[in-house]
């Protein structure tokens, strides 16, 4: 599902077809079970916050990150 800015969700799946890109995403700390907040949007991408780290993630990657809304 899609999170609106400043909404919090939970990552339930990362379905990136490219395994090496998947490893990069995971090793950055974007992992299944992490709480994620959308901190803003830029054209072609989204700014997310996980724990106390912030990332800019391409739209083409973000669409493979499945989340459910918290609470």
């Amino acid at each position, binding site marked *: 599902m899609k999170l609106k800015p400043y909404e919090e969700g939970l990552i339930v799946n990362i379905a990136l077809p490219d*395994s*090496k*890109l*998947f*490893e*990069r*995403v*995971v*090793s*950055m*700390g974007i*992992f*299944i079970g992490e709480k994620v907040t959308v*901190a*803003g*949007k*830029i*054209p*072609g*991408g989204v*700014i997310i916050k996980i*724990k*106390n*780290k*912030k*990332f*800019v*993630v*391409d739209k*083409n*990657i973000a669409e493979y990150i499945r989340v459910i809304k918290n609470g």
Partner: protein
Amino acid sequence: MDKIKIVLVGQPNVGKSSLLNALVGPKVVISNYPGTTVEVTKVQKTFDGIEMSFLDTPGIYSISDRSEEEKVTEKILFEEEIDGVIVVSDATALERSLYVLLQIMEADIPAVIALNFVEDARSKGIKIDCKRLEKALGISVIPINPITKKGIDDLLNSLLRIKDKKVKFRVEYDDHIEEAISQISSKLKETRLPKRFISVRILEGDEDFYKYLGDEKILDSIKKNLSEKHPKIDRDIAVTRYGIASLLAEEATQIVHTVRGEDIQEKVDRLLLHRSWGPVITMLILVITFGVLLYLGNLLQSILMDLTSNFLSFLHITGNSMPDIVLARSLTGLAAGISIALPYVFLFYLLLGLLEDMGILSRFIVNAERFFGKFGMPGKAFIPLALGLGCTVPATKATRVLSSKREQFYVASFLSFVPCSSRTAIIMGVVGFYGGIRLAFYVFLTLLMAALIWAFAIKKLYHVSREPLLLELPPYRKPLAGNILAKGWFRMKDFIYVVIPLLMVGGAVYGILDAYNITHMVVQPLSVITSWLGLPDVTIIPLTFGFLQKDLTGAMLVSVLGSNISSVLTPVQIYTFGVASAIGIPCINAFAMLIREFGFRRAVSLTTVSIGYGILFAGLLLRIIFIF
């Protein structure tokens, strides 16, 4: 004397270079890893009678072979003879650092953890139990602070014994994967790297390790057997490793309290990453920065040129004899070189380093992404292109920020259209002075147009695949002066050794050719160019010899046409001259830097194609203008 070789590994912005500074002081040697755009820092220090050399690798999150940074780190770790690794870790996100650590430990390389940002973590309510982590992993975990130098001696002491450390911790995968690992292990050739490690890398799809397999068909059959339980085994390996890293981190981390509410960092981000304010602020800061740099550059140039001519007349050098010409021209080249090196190299890199260390640069890159993305360039491209407004030579070198050679070359080709300060001087000093400021403005507009057409054409011809955007935004931090100064100084030193001698030689060569009247030899054979451009034949002299030293173009034009240019050339001719001399790789120095970065063949082709394109473009425009 005993020697040990230590490699520093860690994610971007984890403080590796600050740690290196704290370990050995700012005596860094930065060099490019052969054949890549990746820079590797190497330093040495004697401690307790042992010669230690440290190798700083680029910031990475995992040792995969996806990016050039990762490939270089992989080569250094697994192909060079090293004694141990310092994994610089972030106490506020321990699991990420442990991921890389686990990859290193799989290769049986001894490691220590240097735990950075401990105070930061504490203020966020996070406490790391180092003893517990040490026990779990069987390696030293040392909290450090590069600013106060806390823990540095402990770290050095633990490195003394690193050679004898045996790696005890092992990542256990599930039974199917373990079976595949042992199957592959039994088929491997003997090497110094552990077989288990090679097998894991092979299963992860790292092709560099396939060479250890006697027969690659084995892999296919093993993967086929596994396909039911593990359709994507590489992914399952990464997940297992990250899971173990998370678990280890969680056991060692104690959340004392959680911080609520929006802090100052958030407030700054809301502004800098704002949809419209972000790009506006980015542009504003860049424009102000370059305004100041250009102003300083021009000021410095006029001061140095005055000094040079005063010095020459003081020595009674009038410029008639050959040694006089050589001396006078080389001194002018030296003055020009210094007035480029100081503002556009040293000050620029100081500012860039400041923005980078404060965490602002990454926000600028995100904002630039919107604009540059349209041209198939990543946001980072703004760094070399902005520097190109000062001087094409350091800008060519700055294309190294890009992540692949191909991308680097693509961005470098656009430096043909970014007027450096010397080209701006031609546009303002020749076109603006003799043809009016409006005409000069048209030249700038033409450059932009030429760049757009170039971008459109090249996108079709030269396929640039774009990596998807995936970038961490580091927290804002107080910058460290020592770090930034060392970087700025290093860049300038490098520039001084290459470019200033070339500028001096270029000027002197022109002086000699001019004195013997040899410059006129090109007029006849190249008249086809001038007639295509609708310019008097002699203008080919400033057009071609300007390549030796761009700053001389204006003076050369005056020397061939006389000082009353506006009565010899029509406004259209002045405009055409401006366009033809502004498009293309501008000078021999930029050409030399292109050779250094991309090799002779590519440098020659880019230089000829870009200059040819400029001439073609200017001539075509001329014909379009005459139609109307």
